[in-house]
């Protein structure tokens, strides 16, 4: 079969779409025109690649260690509390009106993505108007019954006007079962979150681009995520230039969304990708790579039963099988 490669012209196309995205997303002067790439000295190219890799590795380490530290705080505050869907807001009672005032919005969280602002007053959730003395508590209670990936309809008051906003809840990240004595047991930097495979495995160098209308016209699709660089070692059976339409039925709407979906899988899990390759739609069965770098293989995930019937089970990382 003829193989499809991303030629320099494809890179140009992606780069110009990238510039367009930046222009739309960031206010201010438009970016300069994209120029043809000038081939640089090979050694300097290699050095630059190495510097970039070190920068990214340092970023991964900062993220991982910070997440670990906060994970231990969450455990101290609420040990073994089953996880539930999250929308990423801090609420407080509103003054002068019935509703819950948004005190903080998590950067990059579901509420931020939906356009919720600090100071908005939530007056209804999924059609239920907030009444009574404790509207903020009502919202928290309603949210406990929301399933991950469910859409939550919020009616908010902003500047005296009512707006309807849809927030897609996300699953709360897993919480480590035990953090004591890890270094004594020979555990290296602990993964502690669901995206560990993406940080250390063969998928980490994969590159994706959200399909814009201009890019999409070349690939015969107005939705999906373009694979700019396929994973190393043929993982997921993807090739450069594929367009991912769905991952086990979940349709990625952006590179970030695709990353989040893939992060929810564990090593060795099977999945089905619906892709466009050379203008043909295909279903590809693939298996998540087993390789997880520094993470010990005798760690395992286990479902923890909820304390109350209304609460969903959650997955926690358990130390060696002896403790299973």
């Amino acid at each position, binding site marked *: 079969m003829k193989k499809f490669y991303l030629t320099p012209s494809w890179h140009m196309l992606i780069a110009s779409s990238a510039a367009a995205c930046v222009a739309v997303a960031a206010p201010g002067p438009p970016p300069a025109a994209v120029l043809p790439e000038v081939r640089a000295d090979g050694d300097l190219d290699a050095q630059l690649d190495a510097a970039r890799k070190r920068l990214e590795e340092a*970023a991964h380490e900062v993220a991982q260690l910070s*997440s670990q530290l906060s994970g231990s705080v969450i455990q101290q505050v609420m040990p073994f509390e089953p996880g539930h869907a999250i929308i990423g807001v801090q609420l407080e009672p509103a003054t002068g009106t019935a509703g819950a005032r948004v005190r903080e919005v998590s950067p990059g969280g579901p509420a931020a993505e939906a356009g919720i602002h600090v100071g908005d007053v939530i007056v209804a959730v999924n059609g239920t108007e907030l009444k009574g003395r404790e509207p903020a508590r009502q919202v928290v209670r309603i949210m406990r019954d929301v399933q991950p990936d469910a859409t939550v309809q919020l009616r908010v008051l902003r500047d005296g006007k009512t707006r309807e906003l849809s927030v897609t809840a996300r699953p709360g990240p897993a919480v480590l079962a035990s953090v004591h004595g890890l270094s004594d047991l020979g555990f290296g930097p602990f993964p502690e979150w669901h995206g560990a495979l993406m940080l250390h495995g063969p998928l*980490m160098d994969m590159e*994706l681009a959200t399909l814009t209308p201009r890019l999409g016209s070349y690939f015969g699709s107005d939705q999906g995520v373009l694979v700019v660089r396929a994973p190393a070692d043929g993982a997921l059976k993807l090739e450069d230039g594929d367009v991912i339409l769905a991952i086990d039925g979940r349709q990625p709407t952006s590179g970030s969304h695709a990353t989040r979906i893939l992060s929810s899988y564990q090593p060795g899990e099977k999945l089905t990708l619906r892709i466009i390759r050379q203008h043909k739609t295909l279903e590809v069965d693939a298996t998540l790579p087993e390789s997880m770098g520094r993470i010990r293989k005798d760690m395992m995930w286990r479902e923890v039963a909820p304390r109350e019937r209304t609460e969903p089970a959650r997955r926690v990382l358990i130390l060696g099988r002896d403790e299973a």
Partner: protein
Amino acid sequence: MHPDLDQQRSLARRLRELPDEAAQPYGWREFQRRSGARRRAGQGLAGGRALATASVLATASVLATASVLALGIIAVWTRLGGWSPHSARLTPQAAQPPAGRTAAMEHWLASLPSEPAVVHVGTRAAVTGLEDRIAQVDDLLSAERLDEAHPARLLALQQARTRLVGALVQVRYAETLADESR
């Protein structure tokens, strides 16, 4: 008192007196401006090998400078207690993280595009992992505050949030730099 100890205390005091809001090396608009300037300079000398070398060196120097600046900021924050693992302890005596610093970081994050045009999955997973963790802490803070939890619990969560937002700023900064150098 031993002169070394005295000097150390003096240094610590001077570090504490620094303003709360450690400014980013430069913002997104400045980043775009510099990027545009580099490209325009490249256009003037198109095709020249010297340009290619200069361009790569310029990018490498931006990376190096930014890394040094980032390390400097981390060092200052560590001195200020913002990155100390001890701050995660549930001690009511611990200092409340300055709200202005977090607000400045969140303002900077809000000024960025939601994701680079070409997403590098490894780094993006670091970003999304932090974003989800911050959202989890925010939801917990809401519930804890409404339940009138012990102030020490609220403080510990608030400090965890500040640390996570700081980490998100650094990771996004690295992501932006790496993306720009491709």
